[in-house]
């Protein structure tokens, strides 16, 4: 079990800036921290082995260890104030619970708070879902329930009233949809002789206060020191609080909430009488891109929303006509809370490092160890200031993709996702730790602990999948960060001087971040991208920049950074929605395709009219995760426009029939040229792996309209990887290597171009692309008119064959 975990406040840090590290050391009294330069993260004995280089800096040393925990689970709160210290009350809201009743072993089994100012020790009042899945009204230690369990994944209206004078407590549970055999649920009425005990507990939405003084471990909670418990899974819409017991008719009227804009004579509304007792009336459809729940009531009790639940969710009144929350906010008044949401671990800083102004840009990590054998690495990247580039080559580290895959649970959640990987998955100690510690949050590939899609990922938490020495269950080999270190190793061993930059640098700095480089090299799997990043890449290649796309399944999903976290740094939380098509481990519900963070349409870039193939020339066509294979050159590789790339490589050589990801250069996820999907018409396919893939490889679903046989790697012509080249204006160009496994072949035979034809090919391309000035122009006869679909297949040339 991992006792040592940590994270940094930045992925990318500029020389001269400070980077802070946050460490959980659960057990050992102290730990050692050392800054290391990362060269190779792959422990595979058939490769060069794990390589790191110590960096002698003042921050290296021993630090006292202390336990730090993540307080996951989203909720809203308003700090204690006299308005919430009511004697009588009405609480009402709509709910769409996803786990009203949980398994006794479920990680957060127990009652869930909906609207509460209540603690187990101090009492108070609140509306809950009890352990049996039934709505429950609590007044101090007294409980009133209907005894009718809430149907999961369905809307219900709930209201609870308490009249302190008469002691009458009423609980209403009114399902929005009823079925023929549903029993009636009459209101539960009881006399409760209690005076509500008051405490400093906040008013909590979607949870309750577990302890007002939660001890040192609650330092990472909000409000600081207070432990929030009983996290609710599901949607809440239109919560209201009144300071007297309303009649059922008044409750119905109060569903309208505050109506300040309607008529000045009504006060807050919805009627003059009701405006007098209104404490809070939250409208979750307002401020969807913020971390506040807007109170339209008289006291403006805007609730702080913690741990970034999913917003822009369809409400109880969504009618299926509006799909963009920006134009129908009143139908998007729901927030979906999850007990495993996390926006920021909020740990104490353990040590900080002022990065020397002259430190070379590269991949680094804080290596943490204890005398007892614990170990963790916190990777980060030293990125030059814009305008102070130190190399002609930039490696663009796909950090948005790292965030998308952060702490994924597929090997566990998805029953091993075995139909996908085509073997029994292997879980490492990181997976085992995460399977128990759901508070570390999941990836955008996962579903939440309540089974709903996970669409937001923060980097302010330990990300145990972004670690060296980590084999991913998908390939039984490095994936993403450690796989990208295969490329780093190759650059190092071949003596290249390179800078590293990250996705968020390109997102925030745009073209300026790229313009200073002759060539930009991607990681092995830059799948997740923001619009500004794609704009920058496009501008770069159009203005003479050179792009080496070292992987596949790139430029696939629409991402945006949540603006409410910008004050904490660049790209803190990224959002992505899995919409109408694409390879989706979960699927967004109808009406929930638009991002809460920017309001833009989520899903695949393809369905935003921005085809994958336009970025670097190729786009994803298939995936499979059992084993990889190799490439053959095509006649187009002899075209003088590109023949230079194959100097030193025989035409019949098996290209990349070796490697550390699946055993070959062509594998896992594969891209092809398709001029109908955005590949420039002059793109050359110089090598292909067609016909060599296993049955485990399947065509992507966005490429077919209905299911039919023949979609696997042993049959379908689109299941292949195409290595492709095309020129861009002003002496630029793109080389697409089109396979995620490709970089895994680079370290083979120590990356020696004389003993590794993949290394030779990449070296030939990089040596040409990194030169100053425009690329040499193609031959004059290369300039000609080309259509997109104007290829004339041999079968159509019957008349020519007959000599007619």
């Amino acid at each position, binding site marked *: 079990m991992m006792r040592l975990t940590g994270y940094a406040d930045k992925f990318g840090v500029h020389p001269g800036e400070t980077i802070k590290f946050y460490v959980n050391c659960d057990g050992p009294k102290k730990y050692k921290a050392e800054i290391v330069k990362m060269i190779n993260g792959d*422990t*595979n004995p*058939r490769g060069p082995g794990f390589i790191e280089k110590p960096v002698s800096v003042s921050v290296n040393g021993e630090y006292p260890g202390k336990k730090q925990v993540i307080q996951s689970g989203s909720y809203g709160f308003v700090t204690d104030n006299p308005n919430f210290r009511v004697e009588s009350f009405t609480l009402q809201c709509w709910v769409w619970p996803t786990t009203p009743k949980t*398994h006794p*072993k*479920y*990680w*957060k089994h127990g009652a869930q708070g909906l609207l509460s100012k209540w603690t187990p020790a101090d009492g108070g009042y609140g509306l809950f879902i009890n352990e049996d899945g039934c709505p429950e009204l609590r007044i101090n230690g007294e409980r009133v329930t209907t005894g009718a369990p809430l149907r999961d994944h369905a809307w219900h209206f709930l209201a609870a009233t308490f009249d302190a004078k008469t002691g009458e407590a009423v609980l209403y549970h009114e399902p929005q949809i009823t079925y023929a055999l549903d029993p009636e649920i009459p209101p539960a009425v009881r006399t409760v002789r209690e005076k509500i005990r008051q405490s400093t507990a906040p008013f909590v939405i979607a949870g309750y206060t577990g302890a007002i003084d939660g001890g040192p471990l609650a330092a990472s909670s909000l409000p600081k020191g207070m432990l929030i418990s009983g996290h609710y899974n599901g949607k809440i819409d239109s919560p209201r609080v009144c300071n007297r017991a309303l009649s059922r008719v008044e409750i119905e009227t109060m569903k309208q909430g505050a109506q300040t804009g309607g008529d000045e004579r009504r006060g807050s509304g919805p009627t003059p009488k009701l405006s007098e007792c209104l404490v809070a009336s939250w409208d979750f459809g307002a401020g969807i891109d913020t971390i506040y729940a807007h109170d339209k009531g008289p006291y403006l009790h805007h609730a702080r929303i913690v741990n970034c639940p999913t917003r822009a969710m369809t409400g109880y009144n969504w009618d299926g006509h509006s799909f963009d929350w920006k134009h129908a906010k009143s139908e998007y008044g729901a927030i979906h809370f999850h007990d*495993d949401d996390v926006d920021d671990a909020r740990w104490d800083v353990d040590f900080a490092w002022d990065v020397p102004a002259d430190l070379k840009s590269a991949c680094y990590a804080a290596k943490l160890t204890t005398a007892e054998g614990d170990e963790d690495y916190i990777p980060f990247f030293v990125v030059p200031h814009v305008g102070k580039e130190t190399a002609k080559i930039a490696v663009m580290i796909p950090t948005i993709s790292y965030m998308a895959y952060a702490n994924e649970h*597929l*090997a*566990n*959640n*998805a*029953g*091993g*996702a*075995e*139909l996908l990987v*085509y*073997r*029994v*998955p*292997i*879980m*490492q*100690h990181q997976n*085992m730790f995460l*399977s*128990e510690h*759901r508070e570390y949050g999941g990836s955008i*590939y*996962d*579903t939440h*602990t309540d089974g709903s899609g996970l669409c937001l990922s923060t980097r302010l938490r330990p990300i145990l999948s972004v670690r060296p*020495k980590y*084999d991913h269950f998908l*390939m*039984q*080999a490095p994936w993403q960060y450690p796989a990208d270190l295969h490329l780093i190793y190759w650059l190092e061993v071949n003596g290249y001087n390179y800078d590293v930059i990250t996705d968020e640098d390109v997102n925030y700095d745009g073209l300026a971040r790229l313009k200073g480089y002759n060539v930009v090299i991607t990681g092995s799997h830059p799948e997740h991208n923001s619009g500004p990043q794609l704009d920058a890449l496009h501008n770069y290649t159009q203005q003479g920049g050179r792009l080496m796309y070292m992987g596949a399944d790139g430029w696939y999903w629409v991402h945006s950074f949540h603006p409410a976290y910008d004050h904490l740094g660049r790209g803190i939380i990224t959002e992505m929605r899995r919409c109408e098509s694409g390879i989706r*481990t*979960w699927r967004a519900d109808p009406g929930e395709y638009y991002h809460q963070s920017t309001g833009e349409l989520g899903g695949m870039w393809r369905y935003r009219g921005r085809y994958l193939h336009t970025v670097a020339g190729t786009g994803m066509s298939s995936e499979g995760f*059992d*084993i990889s*294979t*190799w490439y053959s050159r095509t006649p187009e590789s002899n075209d003088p426009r590109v023949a230079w790339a194959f100097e030193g490589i025989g035409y019949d050589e*098996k290209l990349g*029939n*070796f490697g*550390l*990801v*699946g*055993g*070959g250069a062509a*594998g896992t996820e594969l891209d092809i040229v398709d001029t109908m999907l955005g590949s420039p018409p002059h793109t050359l396919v110089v090598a292909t792996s067609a016909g060599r893939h*296993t*049955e*485990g490889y399947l065509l992507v679903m966005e490429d077919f309209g209905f299911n039919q046989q023949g979609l696997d790697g*042993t049959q379908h012509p689109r299941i292949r990887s195409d290595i492709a080249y095309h020129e861009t204006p002003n002496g630029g160009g793109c080389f697409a290597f089109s396979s995620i496994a490709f970089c*895994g072949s680079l370290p083979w035979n120590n990356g020696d171009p004389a003993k590794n034809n993949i290394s030779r090919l990449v070296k030939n391309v990089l040596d040409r692309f990194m030169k100053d000035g425009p690329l040499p122009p193609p031959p004059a006869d290369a300039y000609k008119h080309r259509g997109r679909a104007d290829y004339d297949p041999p079968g159509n040339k019957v008349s020519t064959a007959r000599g007619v």
Partner: protein
Amino acid sequence: MISIPRKGTPEYDRLVKEHKACIDSMKGVAGCSILRCATPGDTTEISGGIHEDFLLNRVLLRMRALPAKGKLVVICTKVEKEWRIGRLSGIRGVPPVFVDDRTFSDEQEVQHEIFLMRLEEMAESDGMPEHFHEGWKRRADNWTAT
């Protein structure tokens, strides 16, 4: 659906033998498929296994589609050195547990051991109407979703 072969039948013996041969040939590959490498540890030329034995192919698909609860999984206990067999809980937040004390020194060998265990554990008519339960209506069928 196809039947899961029973121990003592020629089909069972054939499948076990072919699976083992595939696994042995995959040792050293950073990945794994139930296919035979012409040169052990080298995926340049592959054949046999799931590409040529239809029953093996189908039985493996059925095994892969088993629901998460109680599903066997490989757990790496020492990086590049030691592996064990675990079982998924099917409950969020409850980690897999080891099924026994056996350790394996090769990551591919565990695949074969789990294949044998699943042949024992699965009913011959797994997934047929006589196995109907209410969960079939509520997404608790043999479909592994995330």
